[in-house]
């Protein structure tokens, strides 16, 4: 087999990233310029500022990627870029940079769905075996996705209101934890005890959908009421109780879906996959099962371009090509992306 090299570009939120991967599953270079320090000032990502940083970082990140890989653009077979979903102004910087690179060097251009990227981050660790179930949890997503073959994504469950990561951020803000709140809650939770019985939203029987807005409100109300009665609830216990509710719902639904669809592998993807509480609960739940659980290392959970290149590699092999009119699509649906015909 000839060696295949894909350049990936990712700018959907607050990381400017580029990467080169070999044969769809080996990282040659993976560069991420994080803007987190800049957005910390505002307690969250300011979209216009994110877009401005992307313009400042893009060519520097590309240059460093090629330097680290000790390669030139001539060695690249195709250029893959996140086309959505994400912040539209941020996505546009990556999409237009990718088009410029592809046009100037006469290379194929491939649009990649950001969540397909998060899922394919796991192929950098282990070859996929189908059917597989992916649990995607991040600031913008909570989804259970069934894959029966490469490049095909069926959403069997998704959040009906807030994403899990959103609930983490809001609860963190209520607890006065610094931004980004997710890792802070995870850390606090490990020091506390789940003494408060927060609700678990199971929804109707057999549903793999999620709902976190009720839980979020319950936490806020609990803290508010305690404050009015001048009670002190240890933050550690609030974090542990909140996290226990989120983790129990996520692991239970994942477990049920894995049984129903008789999957070979479970993949965890997205920023919240970095959560220690979730990781250990999943490991515990599946330890006696005949299913392989794949949890990426922290560096591949958060946004990066190696995952975009990995998803792009499969799309490239399957013959998908984007035209010069490729646009950023902030609400690109995974299923439509999955069914695209070029």
């Amino acid at each position, binding site marked *: 087999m000839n060696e295949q090299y894909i350049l990936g570009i990712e700018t959907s939120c607050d990381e400017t990233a580029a990467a080169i991967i070999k044969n769809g599953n080996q990282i040659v270079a993976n560069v991420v310029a994080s803007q987190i320090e800049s957005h910390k000032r505002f307690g969250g990502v*300011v979209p216009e500022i994110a877009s401005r940083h992307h313009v400042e970082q893009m060519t520097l990140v590309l240059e460093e990627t090629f330097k680290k890989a000790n390669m030139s653009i001539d060695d690249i077979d195709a250029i893959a870029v996140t086309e959505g979903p994400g912040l539209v102004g941020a996505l546009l910087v990556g999409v237009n940079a990718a088009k410029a690179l592809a046009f*100037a060097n006469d290379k194929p251009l491939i649009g990649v769905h950001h969540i397909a990227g998060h899922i394919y981050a796991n192929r950098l660790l282990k070859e996929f075996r189908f059917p597989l179930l992916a649990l995607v949890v991040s600031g913008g997503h909570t989804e259970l996705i069934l894959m029966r073959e490469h490049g095909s994504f069926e959403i069997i469950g998704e959040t009906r209101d807030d994403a899990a990561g959103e609930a983490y951020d809001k609860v963190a803000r209520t607890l006065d934890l610094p931004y980004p709140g997710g890792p802070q809650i995870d850390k606090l939770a490990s020091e506390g005890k789940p003494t408060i019985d927060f609700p678990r939203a199971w929804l109707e029987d057999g549903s793999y959908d999620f709902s976190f807005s009720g839980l979020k409100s319950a936490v806020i109300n609990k803290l508010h009421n305690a404050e009015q009665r001048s009670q002190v609830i240890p933050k550690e216990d609030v974090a542990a109780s909140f996290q226990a509710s989120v983790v129990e719902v996520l692991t239970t639904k994942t477990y049920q879906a894995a049984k129903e669809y008789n999957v070979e592998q479970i993949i965890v993807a997205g920023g919240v996959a970095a959560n220690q509480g979730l990781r250990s609960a999943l490991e515990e739940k599946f330890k006696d099962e005949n299913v392989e659980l794949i949890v990426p290392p922290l560096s591949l959970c958060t946004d990066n371009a190696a995952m975009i290149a990995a998803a792009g590699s499969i799309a490239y092999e399957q013959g998908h090509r984007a035209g010069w009119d490729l646009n950023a699509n902030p609400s690109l649906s995974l299923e439509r992306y999955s069914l695209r015909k070029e």
Partner: protein
Amino acid sequence: MNILALDTSNQTMGVAVISNGKVIGEYMTTVKNNHSVRLMPAIDQVMKDTQLKPNDLDRIVVAKGPGSYTGVRIGLSTAKTMAWTLNIPIVAVSSLEVVAYQWPSFNQLICPFFDARRGLVYTGLYQTDEHGRLQLLKPETNTLFEDWLMDLAKEKKATVFLSQDLEVHRSLIEQHMGDLAIFPDSPYHLPRPALLGLAGATREPDNVHTLTPNYLRLVEAEAKWLEEQEKRKNA
């Protein structure tokens, strides 16, 4: 010497190719439409029509704003990445300057402007000197147009107003400038990409990595943050 010029900073989208000082291709639309979708197809078409390959390019000139934040970034992301990967110089020219180039007259002041909503505009004041060179008389700024016009009226000089957003502000201009205001016909208000290319043809190149848009305005969240820092320092 082949130059590719591109401008997506405002409503007009333009691509031009200049070869040895001659314009050999120019494409321009003034419809409000998605520049991100149409820019690369336009570049592809103009390059094909002029039978140039990307490797034949020697320089890229891009309009750096002011204008639509998103529009400016589409142009700059494209231009910077192309210049970087082709390893050729990049020159960024003010979007207001490109409009000012439309009116090469020695006798009048030239005031290009873009509407920036809520009575604000991006503007600057230009004049063509006796050698035909465009000079900047008043620095470009983001200002209340009324304040700017009150100052300008004191000059008591015939002034040409160039803007695709002219109709939004025409009566305000007439109110302050009276007969001194000159309003040319529609084509003069549009930034021609060929003029952009010529404006940047011999200029000292920018650093491809550090080149950033000419936003002329802080992001609101950042402005507020800086204000708070200032308050805290004084308290």
